[in-house]
Protein backbone atom coordinates (compact mmCIF):
# COMPACT_ATOMS: atom_id res chain seq x y z
CA UNK A 1 0.00 0.00 0.00
CA UNK A 2 1.16 3.53 -0.71
CA UNK A 3 -0.31 6.69 0.69
CA UNK A 4 -1.18 9.46 -1.68
CA UNK A 5 -2.74 12.91 -1.38
CA UNK A 6 -5.26 13.66 -4.09
CA UNK A 7 -6.17 17.32 -4.61
CA UNK A 8 -9.88 17.67 -5.25
CA UNK A 9 -10.68 21.39 -4.75
CA UNK A 10 -14.32 20.68 -5.25
CA UNK A 11 -17.23 22.64 -3.79
CA UNK A 12 -19.35 20.54 -1.48
CA UNK A 13 -22.44 22.27 -2.86
CA UNK A 14 -21.16 22.09 -6.44
CA UNK A 15 -24.25 20.28 -7.68
CA UNK A 16 -26.55 22.93 -6.18
CA UNK A 17 -24.35 25.77 -7.45
CA UNK A 18 -24.42 24.37 -10.98
CA UNK A 19 -28.19 23.94 -10.95
CA UNK A 20 -28.58 27.47 -9.54
CA UNK A 21 -26.36 28.90 -12.28
CA UNK A 22 -28.60 27.20 -14.86
CA UNK A 23 -31.72 28.64 -13.25
CA UNK A 24 -30.17 32.10 -13.08
CA UNK A 25 -29.36 32.01 -16.80
CA UNK A 26 -33.01 31.08 -17.53
CA UNK A 27 -34.35 33.85 -15.28
CA UNK A 28 -32.11 36.47 -16.90
CA UNK A 29 -33.04 35.29 -20.42
CA UNK A 30 -36.73 35.44 -19.49
CA UNK A 31 -36.30 38.91 -17.96
CA UNK A 32 -38.01 37.91 -14.71
CA UNK A 33 -36.77 39.35 -11.42
CA UNK A 34 -36.34 36.54 -8.90
CA UNK A 35 -36.23 37.24 -5.16
CA UNK A 36 -35.46 34.81 -2.34
CA UNK A 37 -37.11 35.82 0.95
CA UNK A 38 -35.37 34.49 4.04
CA UNK A 39 -36.10 34.91 7.76
CA UNK A 40 -36.93 33.05 10.95
CA UNK A 41 -40.35 31.42 11.21
CA UNK A 42 -42.95 34.02 12.14
CA UNK A 43 -41.18 37.14 10.87
CA UNK A 44 -43.94 37.80 8.39
CA UNK A 45 -42.59 36.61 5.03
CA UNK A 46 -46.03 35.42 3.98
CA UNK A 47 -47.77 38.61 5.15
CA UNK A 48 -45.28 40.83 3.27
CA UNK A 49 -45.57 38.63 0.21
CA UNK A 50 -49.37 38.59 0.36
CA UNK A 51 -49.54 42.36 0.37
CA UNK A 52 -46.77 42.69 -2.23
CA UNK A 53 -48.47 40.27 -4.64
CA UNK A 54 -51.82 41.98 -4.16
CA UNK A 55 -50.38 45.42 -4.90
CA UNK A 56 -48.31 44.22 -7.86
CA UNK A 57 -51.31 42.46 -9.41
CA UNK A 58 -53.45 45.58 -8.83
CA UNK A 59 -50.84 47.66 -10.69
CA UNK A 60 -50.90 45.29 -13.64
CA UNK A 61 -47.59 43.53 -12.94
CA UNK A 62 -47.26 39.82 -13.54
CA UNK A 63 -46.02 38.15 -10.38
CA UNK A 64 -45.89 34.57 -9.10
CA UNK A 65 -44.58 32.87 -5.97
CA UNK A 66 -43.08 29.59 -4.85
CA UNK A 67 -43.47 29.02 -1.12
CA UNK A 68 -41.43 26.60 0.92
CA UNK A 69 -42.56 24.94 4.12
CA UNK A 70 -41.86 21.63 5.77
CA UNK A 71 -45.54 20.64 5.59
CA UNK A 72 -49.02 21.99 4.64
CA UNK A 73 -50.14 24.16 1.72
CA UNK A 74 -51.62 26.79 4.04
CA UNK A 75 -49.33 29.55 2.77
CA UNK A 76 -50.01 28.82 -0.89
CA UNK A 77 -53.76 28.94 -0.27
CA UNK A 78 -53.41 32.16 1.68
CA UNK A 79 -51.28 33.79 -1.02
CA UNK A 80 -53.51 32.61 -3.88
CA UNK A 81 -56.16 35.10 -2.75
CA UNK A 82 -53.90 37.83 -4.19
CA UNK A 83 -54.75 36.59 -7.68
CA UNK A 84 -51.12 35.67 -8.47
CA UNK A 85 -50.18 32.08 -9.31
CA UNK A 86 -48.65 30.40 -6.25
CA UNK A 87 -47.13 26.96 -5.85
CA UNK A 88 -46.26 25.26 -2.58
CA UNK A 89 -43.03 23.36 -2.07
CA UNK A 90 -43.13 20.91 0.84
CA UNK A 91 -39.65 19.91 1.91
CA UNK A 92 -40.87 17.23 4.37
CA UNK A 93 -38.32 17.99 7.04
CA UNK A 94 -35.53 19.59 5.03
CA UNK A 95 -34.62 22.93 6.58
CA UNK A 96 -34.03 24.94 3.38
CA UNK A 97 -34.97 25.12 -0.29
CA UNK A 98 -32.37 24.09 -2.85
CA UNK A 99 -31.97 24.74 -6.56
CA UNK A 100 -33.23 21.30 -7.51
CA UNK A 101 -36.55 21.87 -5.70
CA UNK A 102 -36.97 25.21 -7.48
CA UNK A 103 -36.24 23.65 -10.89
CA UNK A 104 -38.69 20.81 -10.28
CA UNK A 105 -41.50 23.12 -9.16
CA UNK A 106 -41.05 25.46 -12.11
CA UNK A 107 -41.64 22.52 -14.44
CA UNK A 108 -45.23 21.83 -15.34
CA UNK A 109 -46.55 24.84 -13.41
CA UNK A 110 -49.84 25.33 -15.14
CA UNK A 111 -50.45 28.82 -16.51
CA UNK A 112 -46.96 30.05 -15.59
CA UNK A 113 -44.24 30.77 -18.14
CA UNK A 114 -41.10 32.55 -16.93
CA UNK A 115 -40.97 34.89 -19.92
CA UNK A 116 -44.52 36.02 -19.15
CA UNK A 117 -43.59 37.09 -15.61
CA UNK A 118 -42.17 40.32 -14.20
CA UNK A 119 -41.51 38.94 -10.71
CA UNK A 120 -41.01 35.53 -9.18
CA UNK A 121 -40.84 35.43 -5.38
CA UNK A 122 -39.42 32.45 -3.56
CA UNK A 123 -40.43 32.29 0.09
CA UNK A 124 -37.81 30.13 1.76
CA UNK A 125 -38.37 27.82 4.72
CA UNK A 126 -38.34 29.81 7.97
CA UNK A 127 -34.72 29.39 9.10
CA UNK A 128 -31.91 31.89 9.55
CA UNK A 129 -29.04 29.44 9.15
CA UNK A 130 -29.22 26.86 6.37
CA UNK A 131 -30.83 28.86 3.54
CA UNK A 132 -27.75 31.09 3.42
CA UNK A 133 -25.67 28.27 1.87
CA UNK A 134 -28.10 27.41 -0.93
CA UNK A 135 -28.12 29.54 -4.04
CA UNK A 136 -31.52 29.34 -5.75
CA UNK A 137 -30.51 31.34 -8.82
CA UNK A 138 -32.14 34.47 -7.40
CA UNK A 139 -31.05 37.98 -8.30
CA UNK A 140 -32.00 39.47 -4.94
CA UNK A 141 -31.79 37.80 -1.55
CA UNK A 142 -33.97 39.57 0.99
CA UNK A 143 -33.44 39.04 4.72
CA UNK A 144 -36.42 39.90 6.92
CA UNK A 145 -36.35 40.86 10.56
CA UNK A 146 -39.45 41.70 12.60
CA UNK A 147 -39.61 44.23 15.41
CA UNK A 148 -40.73 41.44 17.74
CA UNK A 149 -37.46 39.50 17.28
CA UNK A 150 -34.89 41.80 18.82
CA UNK A 151 -32.43 44.26 17.35
CA UNK A 152 -29.44 41.90 17.64
CA UNK A 153 -30.73 39.25 15.23
CA UNK A 154 -28.26 40.34 12.49
CA UNK A 155 -25.35 39.95 14.95
CA UNK A 156 -26.60 36.52 16.00
CA UNK A 157 -27.05 35.30 12.43
CA UNK A 158 -24.33 37.13 10.49
CA UNK A 159 -23.95 34.47 7.80
CA UNK A 160 -27.44 35.08 6.53
CA UNK A 161 -27.55 38.86 6.88
CA UNK A 162 -24.15 39.17 5.25
CA UNK A 163 -25.35 37.25 2.20
CA UNK A 164 -28.45 39.44 1.72
CA UNK A 165 -28.89 42.11 -0.96
CA UNK A 166 -31.73 43.89 0.85
CA UNK A 167 -33.24 43.81 4.33
CA UNK A 168 -36.82 44.40 5.42
CA UNK A 169 -37.81 45.24 8.99
CA UNK A 170 -41.37 43.97 9.30
CA UNK A 171 -44.32 44.57 11.65
CA UNK A 172 -43.30 48.17 12.33
CA UNK A 173 -46.84 48.85 13.53
CA UNK A 174 -45.79 46.87 16.63
CA UNK A 175 -42.55 48.81 17.18
CA UNK A 176 -44.01 50.85 20.07
CA UNK A 177 -45.46 47.99 22.15
CA UNK A 178 -42.26 45.97 21.59
CA UNK A 179 -40.02 48.90 22.60
CA UNK A 180 -38.14 48.28 19.38
CA UNK A 181 -34.87 50.20 19.22
CA UNK A 182 -34.83 51.22 15.57
CA UNK A 183 -31.44 52.96 15.57
CA UNK A 184 -29.71 49.91 17.07
CA UNK A 185 -31.40 47.56 14.60
CA UNK A 186 -30.31 49.69 11.62
CA UNK A 187 -26.79 49.95 13.04
CA UNK A 188 -26.56 46.17 13.54
CA UNK A 189 -27.72 45.41 10.01
CA UNK A 190 -25.17 47.88 8.66
CA UNK A 191 -22.43 46.43 10.82
CA UNK A 192 -22.97 42.99 9.23
CA UNK A 193 -23.81 44.14 5.70
CA UNK A 194 -22.52 47.67 5.17
CA UNK A 195 -24.51 49.77 2.72
CA UNK A 196 -27.42 47.33 2.31
CA UNK A 197 -30.84 48.77 1.31
CA UNK A 198 -33.17 48.57 4.30
CA UNK A 199 -36.95 48.84 4.19
CA UNK A 200 -39.30 49.27 7.13
CA UNK A 201 -42.75 47.89 6.50
CA UNK A 202 -46.04 46.88 8.00
CA UNK A 203 -48.05 44.51 5.85
CA UNK A 204 -50.98 45.30 8.10
CA UNK A 205 -51.09 49.09 7.78
CA UNK A 206 -49.26 49.33 4.46
CA UNK A 207 -46.53 51.55 5.94
CA UNK A 208 -43.31 51.44 3.90
CA UNK A 209 -44.90 49.44 1.09
CA UNK A 210 -44.51 52.26 -1.44
CA UNK A 211 -40.70 52.36 -1.01
CA UNK A 212 -40.51 48.56 -1.15
CA UNK A 213 -42.57 48.40 -4.36
CA UNK A 214 -40.51 51.18 -5.89
CA UNK A 215 -37.34 49.19 -5.13
CA UNK A 216 -38.87 46.10 -6.75
CA UNK A 217 -39.71 48.06 -9.90
CA UNK A 218 -36.16 49.45 -10.04
CA UNK A 219 -34.63 46.00 -9.58
CA UNK A 220 -37.04 44.59 -12.16
CA UNK A 221 -35.71 46.99 -14.79
CA UNK A 222 -32.25 45.40 -14.47
CA UNK A 223 -33.46 41.78 -14.32
CA UNK A 224 -31.80 41.05 -17.67
CA UNK A 225 -28.36 42.22 -16.50
Amino acid at each position, binding site marked *: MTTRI*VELRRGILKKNDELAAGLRANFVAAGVLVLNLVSSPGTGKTALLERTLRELVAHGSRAAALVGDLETDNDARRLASSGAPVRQINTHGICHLDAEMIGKHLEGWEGVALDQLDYLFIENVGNLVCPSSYDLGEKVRVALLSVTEGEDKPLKYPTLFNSADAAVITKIDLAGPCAFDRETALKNINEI*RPGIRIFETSAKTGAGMAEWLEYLAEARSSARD
Partner: protein
Amino acid sequence: MHELSLVTSIVESVTESLAAYPGARVLEVRLKVGALAAVVEDALQFCYGLATEGTALEGSKLRVNLLPVVMHCVPCDQDMQLEGVQSFRCPRCGEPCSDLRQGRELEIDSIEIDEVEVKP
Protein backbone atom coordinates in the same frame (compact mmCIF):
# COMPACT_ATOMS: atom_id res chain seq x y z
CA MET B 1 -28.58 21.70 10.69
CA HIS B 2 -28.01 20.73 7.09
CA GLU B 3 -24.69 19.12 7.96
CA LEU B 4 -25.96 15.62 7.20
CA SER B 5 -26.81 16.59 3.63
CA LEU B 6 -23.39 18.25 3.31
CA VAL B 7 -21.64 15.14 4.58
CA THR B 8 -23.67 13.00 2.18
CA SER B 9 -22.47 15.18 -0.73
CA ILE B 10 -18.90 14.83 0.54
CA VAL B 11 -19.22 11.04 0.52
CA GLU B 12 -20.70 11.08 -3.01
CA SER B 13 -18.05 13.44 -4.30
CA VAL B 14 -15.11 11.54 -2.79
CA THR B 15 -16.51 8.18 -3.92
CA GLU B 16 -16.74 9.54 -7.48
CA SER B 17 -13.13 10.69 -7.42
CA LEU B 18 -12.00 7.26 -6.21
CA ALA B 19 -12.96 5.74 -9.57
CA ALA B 20 -9.44 6.63 -10.72
CA TYR B 21 -7.95 4.64 -7.80
CA PRO B 22 -9.63 1.23 -7.72
CA GLY B 23 -9.53 -0.51 -4.36
CA ALA B 24 -8.16 2.55 -2.58
CA ARG B 25 -9.14 3.28 1.02
CA VAL B 26 -9.64 6.80 2.26
CA LEU B 27 -7.59 7.79 5.31
CA GLU B 28 -8.50 11.45 5.58
CA VAL B 29 -10.75 14.02 3.94
CA ARG B 30 -9.64 17.65 4.23
CA LEU B 31 -12.16 20.45 3.98
CA LYS B 32 -11.90 24.21 3.69
CA VAL B 33 -14.74 25.90 5.52
CA GLY B 34 -15.15 29.67 5.61
CA ALA B 35 -16.32 31.49 8.73
CA LEU B 36 -19.47 32.53 6.83
CA ALA B 37 -20.31 29.07 5.51
CA ALA B 38 -23.00 28.49 8.15
CA VAL B 39 -21.48 25.15 9.08
CA VAL B 40 -20.65 23.83 12.53
CA GLU B 41 -17.64 21.53 12.68
CA ASP B 42 -18.98 19.45 15.59
CA ALA B 43 -22.17 18.72 13.66
CA LEU B 44 -20.13 17.74 10.58
CA GLN B 45 -17.98 15.39 12.64
CA PHE B 46 -21.05 13.91 14.30
CA CYS B 47 -22.68 13.11 10.94
CA TYR B 48 -19.47 11.98 9.27
CA GLY B 49 -19.21 8.63 11.05
CA LEU B 50 -22.80 7.76 10.18
CA ALA B 51 -22.62 8.86 6.56
CA THR B 52 -19.37 7.05 5.80
CA GLU B 53 -20.46 3.70 7.21
CA GLY B 54 -20.24 0.97 4.57
CA THR B 55 -18.44 3.25 2.07
CA ALA B 56 -14.79 3.52 1.01
CA LEU B 57 -14.58 6.41 3.48
CA GLU B 58 -15.47 4.30 6.51
CA GLY B 59 -13.01 4.85 9.34
CA SER B 60 -11.43 7.90 7.70
CA LYS B 61 -10.80 11.17 9.50
CA LEU B 62 -12.43 14.45 8.62
CA ARG B 63 -10.12 17.40 8.97
CA VAL B 64 -11.69 20.86 8.82
CA ASN B 65 -9.53 23.85 8.00
CA LEU B 66 -11.47 26.95 9.11
CA LEU B 67 -10.85 30.07 7.06
CA PRO B 68 -11.38 33.54 8.50
CA VAL B 69 -13.21 36.27 6.61
CA VAL B 70 -11.05 38.39 4.33
CA MET B 71 -12.47 41.64 2.95
CA HIS B 72 -10.97 44.10 0.52
CA CYS B 73 -10.69 47.54 2.06
CA VAL B 74 -10.94 50.22 -0.62
CA PRO B 75 -9.31 53.13 1.29
CA CYS B 76 -6.40 50.91 2.41
CA ASP B 77 -6.33 49.21 -1.03
CA GLN B 78 -5.55 45.94 0.72
CA ASP B 79 -7.15 42.61 1.64
CA MET B 80 -7.76 42.58 5.39
CA GLN B 81 -8.52 39.62 7.63
CA LEU B 82 -11.40 40.13 10.06
CA GLU B 83 -11.17 38.81 13.58
CA GLY B 84 -14.76 37.60 13.73
CA VAL B 85 -18.09 37.95 11.98
CA GLN B 86 -19.64 40.61 14.18
CA SER B 87 -18.42 43.67 12.36
CA PHE B 88 -17.55 44.05 8.69
CA ARG B 89 -15.21 46.97 9.04
CA CYS B 90 -11.57 47.28 8.12
CA PRO B 91 -9.56 46.46 11.28
CA ARG B 92 -7.04 49.13 10.31
CA CYS B 93 -9.05 52.17 9.21
CA GLY B 94 -12.53 51.29 10.49
CA GLU B 95 -14.26 51.79 7.13
CA PRO B 96 -17.18 49.43 6.38
CA CYS B 97 -16.25 46.76 3.81
CA SER B 98 -18.59 44.96 1.46
CA ASP B 99 -16.13 43.30 -0.91
CA LEU B 100 -15.75 39.75 0.43
CA ARG B 101 -12.62 37.91 -0.71
CA GLN B 102 -12.72 34.87 1.57
CA GLY B 103 -15.12 33.35 4.08
CA ARG B 104 -17.86 31.50 2.18
CA GLU B 105 -15.73 28.48 1.17
CA LEU B 106 -17.28 25.08 1.58
CA GLU B 107 -15.04 22.72 -0.32
CA ILE B 108 -13.21 19.44 -0.29
CA ASP B 109 -9.59 20.49 -0.55
CA SER B 110 -7.92 17.10 -0.80
CA ILE B 111 -8.10 13.48 0.30
CA GLU B 112 -5.43 11.17 1.61
CA ILE B 113 -5.79 7.63 0.33
CA ASP B 114 -4.12 4.27 0.71
CA GLU B 115 -3.61 2.96 -2.78
CA VAL B 116 -3.49 -0.67 -3.77
CA GLU B 117 -0.24 -1.31 -5.59
CA VAL B 118 -0.73 -2.87 -8.95
CA LYS B 119 1.84 -5.57 -9.57
CA PRO B 120 3.54 -5.33 -12.92
